């Protein structure tokens, strides 16, 4: 009995010392972890999607390893529709080491059009960015960190307006089209403008567009007329652009 009691006493003391040491070193080590998201972001394009690459580094100066690090960002529009979900995985960050990784956030304008979020093309707004970080610390403590931020969204066709229609010749009118590209990417492609008149006849013209980010577009698009037009009822805009592939906008006039 005496030996059993002694053994239990020793075991309790040793385990208390280990737990206190573990607690202290975990707190100390957690304070030695540094995350850096401040490097310059890169914007690239592929498969009709815009990808913002966010380089980050995690410096684990502690005494324990970080495993199964998962960074997920979810971009959500005002009506709670998901625009983008991106995940980065880092299997292991050994102790006293720094890991450099890139978190890619992809936004496809095609998806935006498919999800009936066309207002994002015409109006500036704030998007909600939900950020989730999950990791296991010291192989014993799973942690979940979440944060909610807002990100300004600049519309690529901000303040889109069809201006006056001026008659150039009996067979041609010029229709002025203007907008400002508030997006962080440039627009490069063509726009076809179709006028539907009160006689239900259509007349069309095409123009190239190349608008850098934060630049304005204000040009007259020549439209060929086979006959004297009636009153303009509708204007159809067909964008054939790198990101706005085959997007049609119908604007009622008057």
């Amino acid at each position, binding site marked *: *009995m*005496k030996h*059993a*009691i002694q053994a*239990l*006493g020793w*075991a*309790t003391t040793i*385990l*208390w010392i280990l*737990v206190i040491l*573990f*607690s202290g070193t975990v707190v100390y080590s957690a304070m030695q972890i540094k995350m850096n998201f401040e490097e310059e972001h890169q914007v690239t394009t592929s498969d009709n999607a815009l990808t913002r690459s966010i380089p980050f580094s995690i410096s684990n100066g502690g005494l324990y390893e970080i495993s199964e690090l998962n960074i997920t960002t979810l971009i959500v529009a005002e009506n709670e529709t998901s625009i983008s979900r991106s995940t980065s995985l880092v299997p292991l960050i050994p102790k006293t080491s720094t890991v450099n990784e890139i978190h890619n956030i992809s936004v496809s304008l095609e998806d935006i059009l498919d999800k009936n979020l066309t207002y994002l093309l015409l109006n500036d707004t704030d998007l909600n960015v939900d950020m989730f970080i999950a990791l296991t610390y010291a192989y*014993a*403590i*799973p*942690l*979940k*960190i*979440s*944060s*909610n*931020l807002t990100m300004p969204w600049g519309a690529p066709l901000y303040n889109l307006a069809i201006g006056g229609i001026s008659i150039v010749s009996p067979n041609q009118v010029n229709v002025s089209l203007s907008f400002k590209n508030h997006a962080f990417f440039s627009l490069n492609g063509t726009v076809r403008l179709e006028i539907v008149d009160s006689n239900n006849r259509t007349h069309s013209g095409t123009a190239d567009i190349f608008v850098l980010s934060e630049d304005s577009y204000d040009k007259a698009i020549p439209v060929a007329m086979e006959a004297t037009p009636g009153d303009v009822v509708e204007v159809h805009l067909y964008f054939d652009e790198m990101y706005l592939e085959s997007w049609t906008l119908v604007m009622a006039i008057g």
Partner: protein
Amino acid sequence: MAEDKGMQMFLKKMIPKVLKATVMGLLWFFLLYALPTLFLSELVEEVLPGYTQLLSIFAIVIVFFVVVSELLAGTIFQYAFNIGKALVFMAFFIYALNGGFIAFDLEFVHIEADLRVYLAMLLTIDFLGLAKSLLQAIDFLGKKTERQLAI
């Protein structure tokens, strides 16, 4: 005369116990309350605001059990209180760590920690302490019975 002698014997027996209990109580109070308050109070208050109060309760409970255990040393009640201490600590750890899942907000960041493994470590130690106290109580009663039988 006999009463005075009895009183003297009682005091002779109790004064060292009271002194030891006082010293042990102060030592544990210093280790579990004064030191953490001195070094960690700002951090704990900032990160886990409710935990300063829990730390105080933990220190009070430990000091209470240490003092009582010292005062009742050499009696079966010492082991009974040690068993009670192990059970109270188990309940306390489960409550303080919210069953192993704690969550808190740090500025605009929400953090959730799964401390079930850590809680399991603490509960294991308490189980060992509980087993030790039970064995001590059985041993104490066994020896007492043996003495009575010998007389």
